[in-house]
């Protein structure tokens, strides 16, 4: 291999890891933003506190991923620039994360779907050849496991609860199911990183996810819809109509007062 080829190979990997970090960071950040919308709106104070705590875990994960992305990019952008000064098309989160909260059942089910996906993702990433990613993921695994347990218990409680709660979570299931297929799609970036032992192949997460979903749905009296079609686009920056509003609210302060701190 010529030196110039090697150099080019290294910079492709660097760009891929940067893209990957931003996607992971965006998933965590957008999830956190939606969860924090529940603060002071939850059905009970305990659930209010639960969502706030879970949101905090995700914002912490996002900070570490964004900081690392900034270092990889090497243009002086920090975690705040990544979160608050990028545009919609630059966000690579999955569509599931950005959907409006809806009622409590929908938010709990979304958190459950997301946690059941991101847990095996972080577990795999904890073995990454990239030490920094492995360390961030290793920390996150412990937190996400706790969240998965919390959301799974609520899915069972609502699904196996009253007529009203069962109807609400069943409606949420129909609405959200079309967004779960995207979680297991891989593009070139993720394929290259999986081959390099840096990233996790998203298609490999489906087995663990299915097991978790099937176990919990059986306890919750919920029936899995068919996997016939799904919506996609988040990884490449093509978002739902809801994303612009989410970013407008999340970014308004830094957009209005650039660089402001307190």
């Amino acid at each position, binding site marked *: 291999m010529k030196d110039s080829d090697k150099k080019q190979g290294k910079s492709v990997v660097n760009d891929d890891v940067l893209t990957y970090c931003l996607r992971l960071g965006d998933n965590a950040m957008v999830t956190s933003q939606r969860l924090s919308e529940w603060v002071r709106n939850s059905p009970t104070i*305990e659930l209010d506190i*639960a969502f706030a705590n879970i949101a905090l*875990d995700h914002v912490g994960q996002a900070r570490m991923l964004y900081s690392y992305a900034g270092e990889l990019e090497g243009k002086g952008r920090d975690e705040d620039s990544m979160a608050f000064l990028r545009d919609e098309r630059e966000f690579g989160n999955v569509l599931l994360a950005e959907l409006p909260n809806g009622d409590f059942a929908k938010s709990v089910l979304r958190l459950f779907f997301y946690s059941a996906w991101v847990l095996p993702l972080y577990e795999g990433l904890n073995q990454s050849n990239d030490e920094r990613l492995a360390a961030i993921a290793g*920390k996150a695994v412990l937190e996400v496991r*706790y969240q998965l*347990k919390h959301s799974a218990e609520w899915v069972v409680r609502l699904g196996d609860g009253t007529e009203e709660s069962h109807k609400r979570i069943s409606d949420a299931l129909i609405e959200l199911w079309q967004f779960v297929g995207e979680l297991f799609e891989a593009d070139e970036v993720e394929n290259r990183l999986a081959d390099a032992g840096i990233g996790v192949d998203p298609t490999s997460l489906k087995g663990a996810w299915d097991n978790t979903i099937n*176990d919990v749905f059986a306890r919750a009296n919920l029936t899995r819809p068919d996997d016939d079609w799904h919506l996609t686009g988040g990884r490449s920056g093509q978002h739902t109509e809801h994303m612009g509003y989410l970013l407008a609210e999340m970014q308004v302060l830094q957009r209005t007062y650039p660089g402001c701190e307190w």
Partner: protein
Amino acid sequence: MDTATDISIENAHDVERIHDILSQVPDPEIPVLSVVDLGIVRDVRVKGGCVEVDVTPTYSGCPATDVIAHDIETALTKGGYSNATVNRVLSPPWTTDLISSGGRDKLKAYGIAPPVGGRSVTALFGDDPEVPCPRCESKDTELVSPFGSTPCKAHYKCRSCAEPFDYFKCL
């Protein structure tokens, strides 16, 4: 050779003193515990006149992380080590297993039930651990909420003495 030995003895003395200083730095959220009790101090190194302290965060989003770094630097400066830096290390991740036995006693005396058992269980469903009431020792307690006033706590209630209490949840 002799010089090298002298330096390492001097360093060992410094490291011990620094450890004593750190044992007095309280965790901002649970001030009854020091950062040493909590098990978040990973390493202390003295090189030349510089002190380096490695600290690991309890939770990814722990808002106290920056405050802790600042408090450690301030305490070391007061203790005569003005050239101290605090590094954040992530791996291996902190778990509640790292809370010292002294720390566990302090938590209990403060009214917070210390973490029970080992690391968090991986099973989604299963019996919650038996958490004894920190006030009356009764094991007849119930989980009110798996999330509490800070990221590290869950909320419990004692059925015997009717007191609510915090539980330092297992991670």
